[in-house]
């Protein structure tokens, strides 16, 4: 191969065998490091600046990747569990699932939020937890058919135009997937850590793994994995069935090198209390299910301390 230097461009010409394969290699006179820095600056233009929400000390996101594993149920009971473990802490709940907002139902909240003096939305509160959700802003049956860009702007409003006041923790219930909402939130606000929820089955774990990877890509620390719907105990004969497989999430936590935060059983009380809008941590505080959520909450607090130090 011959090299020709022409006007700062280096061409590699074909060999004498007559193969006409041309390779063009552009060699700039500038330093490649400065080039990379310029490229990085250009990419960052147009991306939102990461700014903390005033008054909120730590943001914990509850995510999965897979739908229907119990993110919302876990987020709600985690928020209440954090308060139950330490009554001095103030916890807020943000429902970032724009398309399928479940928090209003789970927290038994309804109605349009009022505006504060500085034109911010006042979160609706129940059980001592201020909550904000798209579900408060739209009709019960109206679908929210938004493309990515609208979603970005909707999420910004939920983050910035809410009068959260002073909170120790803001628990954010994420929607399933690894797309616009997740990117918008991680780009907009600093996140103390992510809790990943999964059921034991492989199909859910595959997606949970992708969820964990996504957080690594955007530099959000993964606090750990929660195994939800781990085992079902028949109310009549107490026979235990692992409907969705057994211990898959525990094994995935090992594989990914993340902390295993706890097991939540598949118990009919959790679903019943959720449907009634009376989360199990509040309505049956002495039950094993409530204890399971409180265990996860203390593990989360421990992990937060480790990660921030």
């Amino acid at each position, binding site marked *: 191969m011959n090299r020709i230097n022409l006007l700062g461009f280096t061409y590699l010409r074909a060999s004498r065998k007559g193969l006409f394969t041309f390779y063009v290699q552009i060699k700039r006179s500038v330093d490649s490091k400065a080039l990379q820095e310029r490229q990085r600056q250009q990419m960052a233009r147009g991306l939102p600046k990461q700014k903390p929400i005033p008054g909120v000390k730590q943001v914990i996101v509850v995510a999965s990747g897979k739908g229907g594993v119990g993110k919302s149920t876990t987020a709600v009971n985690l928020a209440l569990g954090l308060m139950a473990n330490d009554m001095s802490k103030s916890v807020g709940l943000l429902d970032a699932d724009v398309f399928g907002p*479940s928090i209003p139902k789970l927290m038994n909240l309804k109605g349009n939020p009022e505006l504060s003096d500085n034109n911010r939305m006042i979160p609706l509160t129940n059980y001592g937890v201020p909550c904000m959700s798209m579900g408060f802003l739209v009709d019960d049956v109206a*679908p929210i058919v938004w493309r990515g860009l609208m979603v970005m702007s909707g999420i910004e409003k939920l983050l910035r135009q809410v009068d959260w006041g002073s909170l120790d923790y803001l628990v954010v219930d994420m929607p399933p997937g690894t797309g616009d909402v997740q990117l918008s939130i991680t780009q907009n606000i600093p996140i103390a850590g992510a809790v990943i929820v999964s059921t034991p089955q492989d199909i859910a774990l595959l997606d949970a793994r992708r969820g964990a990877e996504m957080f690594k890509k955007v530099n959000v620390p993964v606090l750990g994995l929660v195994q939800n719907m781990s085992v079902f105990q028949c109310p009549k004969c107490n026979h235990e069935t692992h409907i969705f497989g057994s211990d898959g999430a525990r094994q995935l936590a090992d594989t990914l090198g993340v902390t295993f935060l706890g097991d939540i059983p598949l118990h009919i009380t959790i*679903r019943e209390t959720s449907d009634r809008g009376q989360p199990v941590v509040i309505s049956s505080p002495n039950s094993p299910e409530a204890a399971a959520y409180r265990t996860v909450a203390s593990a989360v607090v421990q992990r937060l301390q480790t990660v921030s130090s």
Partner: protein
Amino acid sequence: MEEINDGNLGQVRHVVLVLSGKGGVGKSTITTELALALKHAGKKVGILDVDLCGPSIPRMLSMGRPDVHQCDSGWVPVYTDTQKSLALMSIGFLLEDPDEAVVWRGPKKTALIGQFVSDVAWGELDVLLVDTPPGTSDEHLAVLENLKKHRVDGAILVTTPQAVSTGDVRREITFCKKTGVRILGIVENMSGFVCPHCSECSNVFSKGGGEELAKMTGSVFLGCVPLDPLLSASIEEGRDFTQSFPDSATFSAISSISQTLLNSLQTD
């Protein structure tokens, strides 16, 4: 381009979307089981998996990671058998690393789905089932826009019986009505768990929510599928549940749903 578009979907007799709104209710599971039931009934079936963030179908059909080939009219779908009775296209086949997270914003997803719809050489199919992700966003709009040139026979909505699910599915029903997609029916999944030890039926995820939703919205109720650990295990291992457990209540539920679906498609 118009000709190629028609060419690729031109021999597909019926297109059915499987929607929910709510995540984790079993859309992919139901899509897979319906496809298998229809295949065993002698139909040629295709599955288009537009869940780009969480493509579950390849795993459920034990497809591994085959290469996707190109032909004159576009991508060749992956067939599960030599008789070519079940074809599948999913982003799962196009990723280099199966564990890779697809962290894309809307426009990129829309573009790929456009390609999945128009540039896959489906050939002759009786039914093309489209498995969607939860929500009502870019993926759903992209699928509908790209299928506008071809007819969409309708959508099957999957829900679990509990209130959190039916709430989201109600929104999806409104979405279908607004976009002019005919609702072929509602499936109530994970409806009741029968203890394998004592046969006591526990309504873990409640019961009747799907049926009530159907009545409330004037839609057809296609049936209940119970919460069956054998079905979850089959799906996990990528086995054909309809072959392994033909005597189970779950199998008869799925068969009856697929039969009702075929009847409503054929009366068009």
